[in-house]
């Protein structure tokens, strides 16, 4: 058995919806329903499904932004919801996230270097000089220059901002990168550049990736394995080539057909 980095075991998450009537209990939405999967070191796992299928809820739970209602999430063998706040903060350097909209996740009034250094400062282990060196290093790793760190987010194009978000995510040398629709807002040519960058970083740094997307063609080009989610349930899972080549469910077939057009 290969080295397991992340194990998601029977995880469910429910949300209470607003009350529809005064004397009836509030309806409950099951965002994730009994999901289980593993992620091995160095692997990329794609999670596909349409909006509302529970992709982002799953990501939030893996990132320990939200606890699951039932089930466990083990990262490097540790239950991330059993840790105390200090332990969790330290562990956070090992899993980082890249969001869809880099403009929303970068502070417009801070320099890019400040934003990239933020996770390192939050962990509180690195000296300011060390952080400066590391920021310059990651900027170059994502195809920007150390000088770009002095600029502000609005001075960059969408693709470059996504590079900055990736630089910030890899600054703490994580073992796992969670990318939530990280290339969805980009034009095709820029999207291809960012996908290539992610593939390179993965090879160079030995990263594992949880790659969330509604675009099957994108998932097909970057993921080793894939999970298809519908209404919070895992419909199918397996090697990307196999699942997309011989989809077992009608829903997966419709997604494949949509991606082929």
């Amino acid at each position, binding site marked *: 058995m290969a080295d397991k980095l992340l194990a998601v075991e029977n995880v469910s998450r429910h949300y209470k919806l607003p009350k529809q009537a005064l004397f009836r209990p509030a309806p409950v939405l099951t965002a994730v329903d009994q999901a289980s999967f593993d992620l091995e070191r160095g692997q990329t796992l794609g999670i596909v499904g349409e909006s509302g299928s529970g992709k982002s809820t799953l990501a939030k739970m893996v990132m320990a932004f939200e606890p699951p209602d039932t089930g466990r999430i083990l990262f490097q063998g540790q239950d991330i919801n059993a840790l105390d706040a200090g332990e969790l903060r330290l562990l956070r350097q090992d899993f980082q996230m890249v969001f869809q909209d880099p403009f929303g996740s970068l502070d417009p009034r801070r320099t890019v270097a400040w934003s990239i250094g933020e996770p390192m400062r939050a962990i509180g282990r690195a000296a300011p000089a060390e952080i400066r060196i590391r920021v310059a290093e990651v900027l170059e790793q994502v195809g920007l220059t150390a000088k770009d760190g002095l600029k502000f987010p609005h001075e960059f194009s969408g*693709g470059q901002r996504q590079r900055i978000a990736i630089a910030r995510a890899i600054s703490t040398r994580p073992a796992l990168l969670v990318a939530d629709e990280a290339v969805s807002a980009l034009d095709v*040519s*820029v999207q291809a550049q960012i996908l*290539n960058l992610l593939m390179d970083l993965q090879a160079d740094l030995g990263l594992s990736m949880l790659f969330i997307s509604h675009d099957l*063609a994108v998932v*097909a080009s970057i993921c080793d*394995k*894939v999970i298809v989610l519908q209404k919070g349930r895992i419909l199918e899972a397996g090697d990307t080539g196999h699942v997309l080549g011989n989809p077992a469910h009608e829903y997966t077939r419709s997604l494949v057909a949509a991606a082929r*057009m």
Partner: protein
Amino acid sequence: MIELKNLSVTLGAAAAVRDASLSIQAGDRLGVVGESGCGKSMLALSMMGMVPDALAVSGQITLNGTAMPPRDETAWRPHRARSMAMIFQEPMAALNPLRRIGDTVMEPMRVHLGLSREDAIKRTLDLFAETGIRDPELRLRQYPHQLSGGQRQRVLIALALACDPALLIADEPTTALDANVSLRITDLLVRLSRQRNMALVLISHDLGAVARATKDILVMYGGDIVERGPTAAVLAHPAHPYTKGLLGARPRIEQAAGKRRHLPTIPGSVPGLFDLPKGCRFSGRCSVEMPHCARSKPENVNTEQGQAACHQLKEGHNGG
């Protein structure tokens, strides 16, 4: 029906659209593709007479044989909704959140066609049926937030059809939608165009949707129309290096399937309006660039599939 001749939309020295000419007839289905910031939406707005005041418009716009002054509101207003209508990317932003959907859809019928409330309700229900909106009677009374994204986009399409336009311009109608919903909306637009003999202009950066829905295609880059022709032929045998680059960069499900292989890319990104090269807009990113490309604007050359504007083609090379 509508014709643009040497249309340019400029902001000082910068051109958002440069020298665009095109003509659309009833029943045409035209796709406009290119990356963000290439002038696609500005081209569409100029066909609606809605170019923002800050920009200057030059060239000719002819609508049903009449020359249209680019920004004379009184000249354009009677044509909007009836001659042409437009739908936008984000249906939530285009619908008034405080008004019932029925009232919003009925407004153009009452203003432009002078229908009574009863007739407008009847017509709205017909349009809801035609555009595949479920529970039409209920929808009339609902508010936009009570609908899913796909249903909202159908409402916008019904709204655009309210006065039987001869031309429907859809600006990224499916970008905000899930892949399989987007497929159904694209197919709906094609069906409506066929049934009503209505011209459709589909603006999208999604080459798949354009390939599926349109007969002809315009490829825009940096405000220029760089290639045009029948959609299937152009996408099968692109002549312009930009069209080739766009097609190459597209991840393809049948090829990739978990192999984790690098995708071909176009280096760099679309420059800002003021940083565009004077000559060929694509110079600086082009793989087959020649020294004079950045300085002189390429002429349109006839290709096997249509037309393309590239110096390589003009000099008898085959662009690679």
